[in-house]
């Protein structure tokens, strides 16, 4: 009896936690369809796409379309770089090498140092070097200091469970190191590599603090959204929230589908 009660309570905690995670997002999703006279809170004053249309009209401030394009391009660059660099580094870390300890410490430090400090440091560095900060140079580098250690840690987890016998089998049959990587290692770790890609993309797409002082004169989407929070007091804000959240969910779903298809193909 007590055990059943305990189980019910514990499962409700999980349920409430999930409601806590999703509830607010669902609220703004509903409120973004507010009628033209509706405000930032309930009740709903009719139902319309008014605020979505407003979002795509020319904004009084900033350049909304441009910021989406830049964020998308930047996130794609960060994703590709994160996959290649952390995969390569993950392969290197399978053996001890000179400086591997230092490189590992530096990677962990990269996760721990507050984002605003990376932003400030990279901004100042470009300043001192006489370079103009831009989203594709300084912001790109600043974001990599966040995504690469994540990618590396995922690679560690993958290679810790990796059975080296498969590679040895490939080598015994005469495969070159490159062939054994391409035909044996990569197909096995493919789902995790796709996971790294997802992380790289979404972390970059939503990154705020590391981009703040490094993006130069052109805003990325999170910077644009932040600007809007101080100037916009209509449900346009919610329409924007709905769109970016739906986009993020689409990216995640797309990734899961790819992983499933890969898994099905190999089963």
């Amino acid at each position: 009896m007590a055990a059943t009660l305990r189980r019910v309570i514990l499962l409700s905690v999980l349920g409430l936690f999930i409601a806590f995670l999703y509830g607010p997002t669902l609220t703004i999703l509903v409120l973004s369809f507010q009628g033209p006279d509706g405000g930032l809170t309930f009740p709903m004053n009719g139902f319309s796409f008014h605020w979505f249309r407003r979002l795509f009209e020319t904004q009084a401030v900033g350049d909304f379309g441009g910021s989406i394009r830049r964020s998308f391009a930047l996130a794609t660059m960060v994703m590709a770089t994160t996959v290649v660099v952390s995969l390569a580094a993950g392969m290197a870390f399978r053996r001890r090498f000179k400086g591997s300890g230092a490189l590992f410490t530096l990677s962990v430090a990269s996760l721990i140092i507050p984002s605003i400090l990376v932003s400030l440091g990279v901004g100042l560095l470009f300043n001192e070097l006489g370079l103009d900060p831009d989203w594709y140079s300084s912001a790109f580098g600043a974001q990599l200091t966040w995504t690469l250690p994540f990618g590396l840690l995922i690679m560690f987890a993958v290679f810790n469970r990796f059975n080296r016998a498969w590679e040895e089998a490939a080598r015994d049959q005469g495969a070159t190191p490159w062939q054994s990587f391409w035909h044996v290692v990569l197909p096995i770790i493919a789902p995790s590599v796709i996971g790294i890609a997802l992380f790289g993309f979404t972390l970059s797409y939503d990154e705020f603090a590391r981009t703040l002082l490094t993006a130069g004169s052109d805003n990325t989407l999170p910077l644009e959204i932040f600007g809007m929070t101080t100037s916009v007091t209509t449900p346009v804000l919610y329409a924007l929230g709905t769109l970016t959240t739906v986009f993020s969910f689409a990216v995640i779903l797309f990734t899961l589908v790819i992983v499933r298809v890969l898994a099905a193909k190999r089963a």
Partner: protein
Amino acid sequence: MPCGSVSAIMVATAQSDATLAQEATEVRPARSGVTMPRWLLTVLQAAPLALVLLLFLLLPMLVIVVVSFFDYDSVQIIPSFQFTNYADVLGSAVTWRTYLNTLRYTVIVWVVTAVLGFTVAYVLAFEIKSRTTQMVLFLICTVPFLTSNIIRMISWIPFLGREGLLNSTLIQLGLIHRPLEFLLFSDFAVVLAYTHLYALFMVTPIFNTMMRIDRRLLEAALDGGAGWWRTVFEVILPLSKSGIAIGSIFVVTMVMGDFITVRLMSGGQSASVGLMIANQISLLQYPAACANAVVLLAIVLMMIAAILRIVDIRKEL
């Protein structure tokens, strides 16, 4: 800890065995070609990571340290070597209060997320028996982490505002007569938002650690007559320490360095070190911001060192 990795790895390991035999036989015999010495290959593999971290982490931190000794006036920073910026940081009562306020946020959020994270991870790891359900629920908990933080903060407005859902519900229930003012733009809102944003950073590493606990230990504890509470506190909790430590490192560093959550959720009424640094930057007082940054970094590193002294997390890596 990488949150998606667990699920990715589980998928990976599940399919790997079936795949491998077939995959291995597809490898063609080696063609003759130039082979690279092993050390050169390793250097080439590790170099890109090392280069990025040197250029965009180590060098920028050095610049911050150097500039923190510079002088400045209202228009420019002047290369120099003096301790005025540090004297300003450490000698100002406002700065001390800001640091204390940031520490207060950190401690509160750490306690809240640790208790919540431990409970949620426990339910996921031990109360959910089906492996598939476990993974699906874990993914559901992970997904919000991959969406925009700023949007997740904004989404509290319709809940907490003067005419928000919470206030109107409480009024309808007759529990209060006037809307509660402290809900939005307050310390309460800041802590709530932090918990909302960062709880997952606790759940994931603790869940990871718990999944590795040998279930026979729990049976042994229960068979030995320990009740549920004793099993949780004297078996599971000690064995989850490294996960809690990793989660704590994430939560502590993120709250200590945060400025946007405090700015948005307190409505400009509370201060944090990150916000102070951001303000100094916007006033172009770079040397002052850098001195503050060095002090903040020192404090964060000391907190992490303290956590690592108490708990050995090496077996997690």
